[in-house]
């Protein structure tokens, strides 16, 4: 959580300084949920994150330098300057590369799990995330239904951060509680307080364990407030003062640090060491990416096909 927060604060500062082209999308306020999504996955599992999952990506094992490389456009990054920011992934290492169209990655995750089952693998699980905005897309419904039909070991963690870009919940859906949809899809459904790290760890950890053990697909619905704009281009002026006063608007990181202090899990000095370590890791990653070459349009391999002899030549 701390590493993700520190890294994303650095990204925001780079963006404001004009050092990042394209958008910056951060997960501020959603780190507790996200980190719990990454922590319980193992080698051989599938993680299909979305745009507010820096904490989960790091917990799953994504090197910080790859994040820096993607945002700064290094040719050595996983996307080599061809795609930016939060679209990055390493499918060969189990981290899928999202597309912007929300809901689309649910069925892709289902497919990866079916392939593992076809091959006779055991003890694997897939986890994908979604927001309450993406939950209203047709592709999401298709993917959820298919996951249950295929009975794949899937966990879907849905975070209601109360705004789809600028649109509040009342213009997004009309059901009383999004977790009720679990029953309709044929999932087992759970609700958590996304600002409470221990609650996130317990419930998402249990959901991963149940899916791995062969229970039906799991839907975990969390509630938080997005503590940033949709992207850093957005000042989020539409977020009302009333909603900022709600319990779900607490900062999960502040809350986690308070719990650590209250329960005396670590002293202030140790926490400061963690902060220093996070800052160092972030600095190293950014510095490394900044030294690497950007792509060059004149030298780029302009080929969208892996089979060279099947490339079309219009001119």
């Amino acid at each position, binding site marked *: 959580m701390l590493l993700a927060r520190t890294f994303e604060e650095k990204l925001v500062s780079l963006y404001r300084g004009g050092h990042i082209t394209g958008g910056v999308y951060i997960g501020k306020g959603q780190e507790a949920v996200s980190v719990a999504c990454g922590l319980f996955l193992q080698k051989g599992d599938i993680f299909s994150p979305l745009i507010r999952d820096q904490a989960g990506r790091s917990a799953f094992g994504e090197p910080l330098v790859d994040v820096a490389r993607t945002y700064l456009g290094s040719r050595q990054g996983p996307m080599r300057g061809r795609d930016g920011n939060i679209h990055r992934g390493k499918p060969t290492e189990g981290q899928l590369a999202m597309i912007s169209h929300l809901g689309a990655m649910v*069925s892709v995750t289902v*497919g990866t799990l079916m392939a593992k089952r076809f091959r006779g693998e055991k003890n694997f699980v897939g986890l994908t995330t979604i927001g309450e905005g993406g939950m209203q897309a047709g592709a999401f419904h298709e993917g959820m239904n298919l996951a249950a039909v295929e009975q794949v070991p899937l966990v879907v963690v849905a975070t209601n951060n109360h705004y789809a870009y600028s649109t509040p919940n009342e213009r997004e859906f009309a059901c009383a509680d999004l977790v009720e949809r679990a029953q309709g899809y044929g999932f087992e459904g759970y609700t958590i307080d996304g600002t409470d790290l221990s609650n996130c760890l317990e419930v998402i950890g249990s959901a991963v364990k149940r899916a791995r053990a062969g229970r039906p697909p799991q839907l975990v619905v969390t509630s938080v407030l997005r503590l940033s704009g949709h992207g850093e281009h957005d000042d989020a002026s539409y977020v009302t003062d009333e909603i900022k006063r709600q319990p779900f608007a607490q900062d999960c990181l502040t809350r986690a640090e308070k719990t650590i202090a209250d329960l005396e899990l670590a002293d202030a000095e140790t926490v400061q060491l963690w902060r220093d370590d996070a800052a160092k890791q972030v600095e190293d990653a950014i510095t490394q990416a900044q030294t690497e070459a950007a792509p060059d349009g004149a030298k780029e391999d302009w080929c969208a096909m892996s089979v060279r002899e*099947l490339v*079309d030549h219009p001119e």
Partner: protein
Amino acid sequence: MSITYLEAIREAQAKLLRDDDRVFIYGQDVGGSFGGAFKATKGLAKEFPGRVLNTPISEDAMVGTAIGAALQGMRPIVEMQFADFSSVALNQILNNAGTHYWRTNIPVPITVRLPSGGTKGSGPFHSQSMESIYAHYPGLVVMTPATVEDAYTMLIDAVAIDDPVVYCEHKYLYYHLKADKLPNEAIPIGKARIARQGRDLTIVSYSVMVQESLAVAAELAREGLEIEIVDLRTVKPLDTDTVLASVGRTGRLLCVGESFPWGGVTAEVIARVASEGFHLLDAAPGRINAKDTPIPYHPNLWSVHRPSAKAIAAKARQLLKE
């Protein structure tokens, strides 16, 4: 013994399932004892248990699932019940499968089968030809077999190709087109075929319109006119060299396609010949497509909406006079 275009598609899938345990078939009504709306998978679910799977009516998720499975090493074949319904899956095919290799360096070896094109009485939502849309986007191979032999070998090739393939099989040819036997050899993917030799006019076509164009060529031959027919086989990649070589021999070009007229394969062929082979042309190139309206239900309307042998012959005669 004879084998139809449809049977060739079924036999290709049987062979793929037999020879390669990475292959599975995913689509609406393909499994069980039913074997698909057109019976292209008849008997396969029984012969290959657990590998020919019915899906819900979820075109987007069907393709998304295939993409995920392909990323994990499988070779899925998705059957769309009708090409028209693949519009629901455009996002997965174009934006997910089509961009994946470029973005991540990892290709997505899926094959999406599209029962395409018009048949009598099928109307606006069971008759479409989608190849031009798929060819427009980067990252996909788009196949349009016009013969029983190609229907068989190209489907086998489609599954072997590491990139996503949209395989447009024409419903009109399913039962009408027959061959004596399945081929042992295949023309390489990406190469067009000279379906008939001639020296007066080149007709470039693909899928069912190759057969219509061959009928026209036979008719015009009785008038002493020699028409050369180029069967594109794949509309992407488009074998411009074979087209240009043919136009070089005849000096005249007519492109025939069943899809809608705005843009598309016929426009692309003419654009390439005009920009790369303008000097080869003795007359302005022509093209024939379906009309720019939704596809009509009634046979009296449908037979006029689609390019007919009569319309092709009339256009060919006109071009030969210029």
